[in-house]
């Protein structure tokens, strides 16, 4: 019973409480780059979750045999091989999305989220918990990507998954697309707003202030 609860916690913790993107601010380069549409965001999420889960499993299996001095090299080799497999599959079956994602699938190799989980968790835990943890982190990353991708596609083009949801002003509707949403800065704003929202709901995630404001003059008198 306790084992099951532990698995459940490992799986659900990274969704919001320990979300890798909004709490640890990991893996945001790809989160910003591929979220102009929901389809690319979803593909990227699935690719990363698969790579992360498999890599955590493999690394966890050989965790007692990896020499400490070259462990990063070994981890990257494993992750890179998995990424190449995923990339080939995407190119073979989803050529259009693969072109839209361009280099970002390849860059999963260097995604700090992947290396962070394998380095921090998979190296010290047996395969099953490692894979559950990796899968949970993949889901947490996916959650953020899908939220941001949906907002950007909806307000930038009035579409969701390429279907016109809001009628465009050009075609007789009322919605004028906000072109800023398709540019990179909007992803920063949205991610910042999302972090703000999460930390308003869960104040325990708020970082300690770096500076204390000077005392107010009337209080000093």
């Amino acid at each position, binding site marked *: 019973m306790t084992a099951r609860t532990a698995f459940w916690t490992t799986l659900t913790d990274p969704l919001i409480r320990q979300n890798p993107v909004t709490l640890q601010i990991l893996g945001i380069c790809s989160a910003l780059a591929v979220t102009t549409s929901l389809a690319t965001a979803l593909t990227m999420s699935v690719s990363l979750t698969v790579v992360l889960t498999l890599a955590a499993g493999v690394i966890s299996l050989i965790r007692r045999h990896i020499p400490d001095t070259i462990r990063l090299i070994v981890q990257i080799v494993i992750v890179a091989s998995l990424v190449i497999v995923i990339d080939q599959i995407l190119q073979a079956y989803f050529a259009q999305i693969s072109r839209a994602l361009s280099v970002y699938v390849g860059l999963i190799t260097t995604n700090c989220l992947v290396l962070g989980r394998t380095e921090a968790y998979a190296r010290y835990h047996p395969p099953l918990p490692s894979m559950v943890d990796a899968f949970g982190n993949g889901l947490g990353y996916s959650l953020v990507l899908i939220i941001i991708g949906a907002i950007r596609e909806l307000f930038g083009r009035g579409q969701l998954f390429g279907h016109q949801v809001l009628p465009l002003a050009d075609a007789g509707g009322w919605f004028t697309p906000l*072109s800023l949403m398709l540019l990179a800065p909007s992803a920063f*704003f949205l991610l910042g707003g999302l972090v*703000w929202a999460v930390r308003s709901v869960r104040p325990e995630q708020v970082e300690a202030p770096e500076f204390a404001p000077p005392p107010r003059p009337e209080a000093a008198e």
Partner: protein
Amino acid sequence: MMKGLWDRETVALMLLAAYMPLALFWIWFGGGAALATLWIAVLCLAFWNFVFLLARAQPPSVAAVVTALAIAMLAPEGLGALRLVLGISFGVVMGELVFGGWGRNVVNPATVTLSFLGFGFPGYGWPGFDDPVVWAAFPAALIGVATGIMPAAVLGGALLVAGAALVLGAPVAEVAPAAWIVLVLLVVDPVTSASTSLGRWLNGGAYAGLVVFFATGWSGAAPVQMAIAAALLTSLATPLLDEIAITLWIAKRRRRHGRN
């Protein structure tokens, strides 16, 4: 008079008084449409200031009216109320209120709003200005400098670089009126302009330099658009300029006295 006369609201009121000539001439030439835009901007700003008053106990400031004036004067034309409110909400909340209100912001909320509107709705035309409105910015700057709320060195740096560009024959004649109004309305804002002497000269110079650079190299952009882009980039660089000025001052002291 426990705390003296010059608190934050005095500065805001003086700033408002300084902008009066500019505002009156602009309303005179813009008529009802100008007043309506200004009214929407004031309402939206008042609403957000009120929200932050309730949520975070941040005292609202009269400076919101100055921000509203700058936004109403420089916003793209024909946006409609909804887009204007969206842009103002973004610019004022993200540019000013989340930092703790007027006086603690790093960038001018009006600059953020206008950049947001420019990038977000590129299909709308930028406003032009009648000559009397451009001239009315001179008394505004004069009152501001005379009362000490606008940094004279920023204006000086900008005019110096602009004059140099004119002498060297850069094509600045077209962009000059819009750049002058943006300089008076956005760049010399006492909060977001530099706060060291040397930093202020550099600040003004950087703004004018960017305007000249855009005027020579950025084809297809409206004068106001170039000036606002220059104002945004300058305000982002301003803390760095202050940092440079302070570093130089420390180095000079160390050379003179052998220690800090």
